[in-house]
């Protein structure tokens, strides 16, 4: 089976203290902040590799971003994906989730036949969870979001979807797009052999010219989203948790509220 995994390079959240915002352009200043593969996308890569190990086939990693996003794709190659494609062009800059999902979908069409498109449930920088579903819409295929388990037999896929307090089982014929949660697996580390091999492998770079795109649907022009302001929220004072017998807790709460002159 042929699996396409959509991944995004994001700033390392463990270093988020270092992320600053350019208030003029409303974008993140990424210089000096280490980049990683979006952690949920690592789960998607892992799932693709496991499915390939079971069923055979080919895994292609796809990403859109600045030239340095090649690094993320190289890590995907080191983990074991067979092929990597980066969509990189100044014309793609400023894409919102609509334009991004359109561009990715057009690239998937160019890649050709596929049975499954996988991605993380959302990216940890934008947290929109829109690009995966958007790609499915542009491709006109079914989508299953928030997967915690995937089973495939013949041409059918069976997915357990995480809901707030339970899960649901969804079945659909292939091809399909699935977004995955952290629960689905533990992503592997690349092996040294994988790492050394990935260094020699080629990451294909596709620009605007390589894809048949409608110009008004890409980049800033294709992005109806307007970012009015972007800011890091002030961290609030930590709340206090009262525990114990309900009646004692209630007494304590009333006392505290009186002390604070709230009642």
């Amino acid at each position, binding site marked *: 089976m042929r699996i396409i995994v959509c991944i995004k390079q994001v700033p390392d959240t463990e270093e988020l203290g270092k992320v600053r915002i350019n208030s003029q352009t409303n974008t993140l200043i990424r210089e000096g902040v280490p980049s990683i593969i979006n952690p949920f996308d690592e789960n998607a890569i892992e799932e693709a590799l496991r499915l390939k190990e079971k069923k055979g086939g080919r895994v292609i990693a796809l990403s859109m971003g600045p030239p340095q996003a090649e690094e993320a794709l190289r890590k995907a190659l080191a983990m074991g994906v067979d092929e990597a494609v980066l969509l990189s062009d100044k014309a793609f800059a400023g894409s919102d989730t609509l334009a991004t999902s359109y561009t990715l979908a057009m690239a998937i069409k160019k890649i050709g036949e596929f049975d499954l498109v996988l991605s993380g449930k959302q990216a940890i920088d934008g947290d929109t969870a829109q690009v995966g579903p958007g790609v499915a819409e542009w491709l006109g295929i079914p989508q299953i979001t928030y997967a915690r388990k995937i089973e495939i037999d013949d041409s059918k896929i069976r997915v357990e979807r995480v809901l707030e307090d339970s899960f649901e089982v969804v079945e659909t014929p292939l091809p399909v797009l699935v977004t995955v949660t952290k629960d689905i697996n533990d992503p592997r*580390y690349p092996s*040294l*052999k994988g*790492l*050394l091999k990935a*260094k020699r492998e080629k990451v294909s770079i596709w620009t605007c010219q390589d894809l048949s795109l409608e110009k008004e649907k890409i980049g800033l022009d294709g992005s109806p989203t307007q970012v009015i302001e972007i800011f890091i929220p002030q961290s609030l004072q930590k709340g206090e948790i009262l525990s114990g017998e309900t009646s004692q807790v209630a007494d304590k709460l009333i006392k505290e509220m009186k002390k604070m002159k709230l009642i």
Partner: protein
Amino acid sequence: MDFTLSDDQKMILGLVEEVCEKEFAPRADEVSTKGEFPAENIKKLAELDLFGITIPEKYGGLGMGYLTWALISEKISRACATTGLIFGANLLCTYPLLQFGSEEQKNKFLPPLAKGESLGAFALTEPEAGSDAGNVQMTAKKEENHYVLDGNKIFITNGEVADTYIVIANMDKSRGARGLTAFIVEKGNSGFAFGQHFEKMGLSALPNVELIFDNCKIPLENLLFKEKRGFRVAMRTFAAGRIGVGIGALGVAEAAFEKAKEYSKQRIQFGKSISSFQAIQHTLADMATQIEAAKYLLYRAAWLLDEGEPFEKISSMGKLYASEVAMRVTTKAVQVFGGYGYTKDYPVERYMREAKLFEIIEGTSEIQRGVIASLILKE
């Protein structure tokens, strides 16, 4: 003289560091307290291809040399000394196989070792043969289709968990060291069993096990190198192994230093962080200086080994110096922590217990001084 790392080495160390930080270091206390073999860590090392670092590509390894191995092992030991020593003891099996093995032996034993599917060990030590390596009492007799091994080994690192053992036995006790012969013994061989697991002051999860050979018949093709030339196999293996042990000590010293440095910045006494006091500053400066010196002795020993140059003297110096540095640095780290350092709430007391082993294994400090003296007096 060039001290820069290659791009490949940087890339590999980046990955190893990530795994050490995320997987090994957070579990190191638990590994030590529970005293159970850290199988998960060893599996991770195998998945990463780390067991194949020094093994040539034609035997399924990466063929990257002993300096790269040392750099990796330093990171592992710093995160978890137990895992580092298991990784190091494995080298005592792969190194003699590479140096002295026949093509058939290399083809048979090295690929699973390179993949980490099998683990290696080296067995010379006996109750009466430690520093006096020539006094091995275990016997080997050649019969028509096999050798017969009889006797006991003690303290064997990776014992029972290892699959492939290089075993030193005596074919002619009257000739002492000149009767020693090296054999390859596989776990599961009839007549080969495991006895006592030795409980230790530190590194309780590191297997140090008694091996029992009772009418143990092994095929003739499992003779390593030549009959009665096992002393040479053992000495060469120890010389290389000393780099690994020194690196282990270095890792422990680095871990203790890091903890002491961090703590000294946080601990407030007399209204100031104790790192602002000259007594502590000098202690930290001494620790860092000695660690740096130990590091480059060991790197140089590994580099000489990779270059095919004589490395025995420098590896003995590196092992001697690094293990004594580890003992001093860990003791000082406990001192920096004061009363807290003596408690089990902080890892520095564990580092101190771990450090002591390095002054003893793979040739005591006294034996190292003897080796170094004999080599420099011959120069």
